[in-house]
């Protein structure tokens, strides 16, 4: 039988942890920073190249109808929006003022953040798919000037089928999975919040 003071004495004889050194942390920081910077740079450069290419096509190719330009514009907006959201989100979670808050406030912040991610991964993804469908639909008008009616019909049916599969099967499964994950997280966070506010 031990009393609490004996447990306290035991606590103070524990070995030093040598698992993580100062140098290892600094090297991880540099590595992560470089990795993130290069990933971000790749993202930005890819988007810029796509935007420039689209602009070039926009100006030089004589399209039959303005709907093609509109479809290009929609795709570009979607890409830029996606990139901005990802960057902002990454910055928010990594360099957050909330880290220095009291645990109860931090848990509230985490709960909001998880809800935000859920919305981003489900509702915004839905909007993104709809915008892309509209863009492809608009491009089909342009295609009708170049290809035969049968080829156009096959392309249109295949595209519609793909979007229906995405919307009614893949997205439903994805949203269900995300929703279950969120429920589990929120349950745990609620439990933590009760502990700190109680």
């Amino acid at each position, binding site marked *: *039988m*031990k*009393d*609490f003071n004996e*447990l*306290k004495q*035991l*606590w103070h*004889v*524990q*070995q*030093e*942890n040598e*698992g*993580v050194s*100062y140098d*290892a*942390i*600094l090297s*991880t*920081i540099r590595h*992560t920073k470089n990795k993130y910077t290069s990933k971000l740079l790749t993202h930005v450069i890819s988007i810029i190249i796509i935007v420039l290419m689209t602009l070039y096509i926009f100006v030089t190719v004589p399209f039959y109808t303005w709907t093609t330009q509109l479809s290009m514009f929609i795709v570009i907006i979607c890409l830029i929006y996606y990139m901005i959201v990802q960057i902002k989100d990454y910055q928010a979670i*990594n*360099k957050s*003022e*909330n*880290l*220095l*808050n*009291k*645990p*109860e*406030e*931090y*848990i509230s912040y*985490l709960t909001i953040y998880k809800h935000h991610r859920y919305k981003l991964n489900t509702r915004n993804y839905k909007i993104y798919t709809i915008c892309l469908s509209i863009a492809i639909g608009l491009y089909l008008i342009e295609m009708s000037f170049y290809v035969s009616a049968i080829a156009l019909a096959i392309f249109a049916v295949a595209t519609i089928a793909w979007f229906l599969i995405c919307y009614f099967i893949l997205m439903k499964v994805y949203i269900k999975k995300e929703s279950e*994950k969120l429920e*589990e*997280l929120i349950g*745990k*966070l609620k*439990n*933590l919040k009760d*502990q*700190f506010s109680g």
Partner: protein
Amino acid sequence: MTQNEALFKSIFDRNNRKVYHLCYGYTGDSDAANDLMQETFIKVWQNLDKFRNQSQISTWIYRIAVNTCLSYLRVEKRKVTDEINERIIETKADEVSDKQEQVNQLYKCIAQLEENERIIITMVLDEVPYQEIAEISGISEGNLRVKIHRIKNKLTEIYNRHERF
């Protein structure tokens, strides 16, 4: 070494032991504790500019460590393979002293407490002043004293129950 690196090194040297204890107490797993400790100090580095306006450094570090632990929700499985872990445990098993085994047992008992209890008792064991624990955990000092009394009894009881077997 830059000025920031020098400041970071001094913060790390003075606090890494306590942060590790807190993370180990919270997770009950030394590998996870090392991961969380590393994550804590990465966040410390990222927020160094905010520290310059703070007076009490340990409170600041503890806040980051506690919040980092709270974000650890065990939803995703750890990336380190069990096979590697088992091998490490086997190699280390013979070297572990009797006392250290009791310490490991103590950590396992702490892991059976509720999350906020784990955080509070680890700080009590590390002799952090009650006023500072109250400040870190956002609980009033009066409420904290009651909680500490209850957690001490609970932990002692769990430990003694395990020691009997």
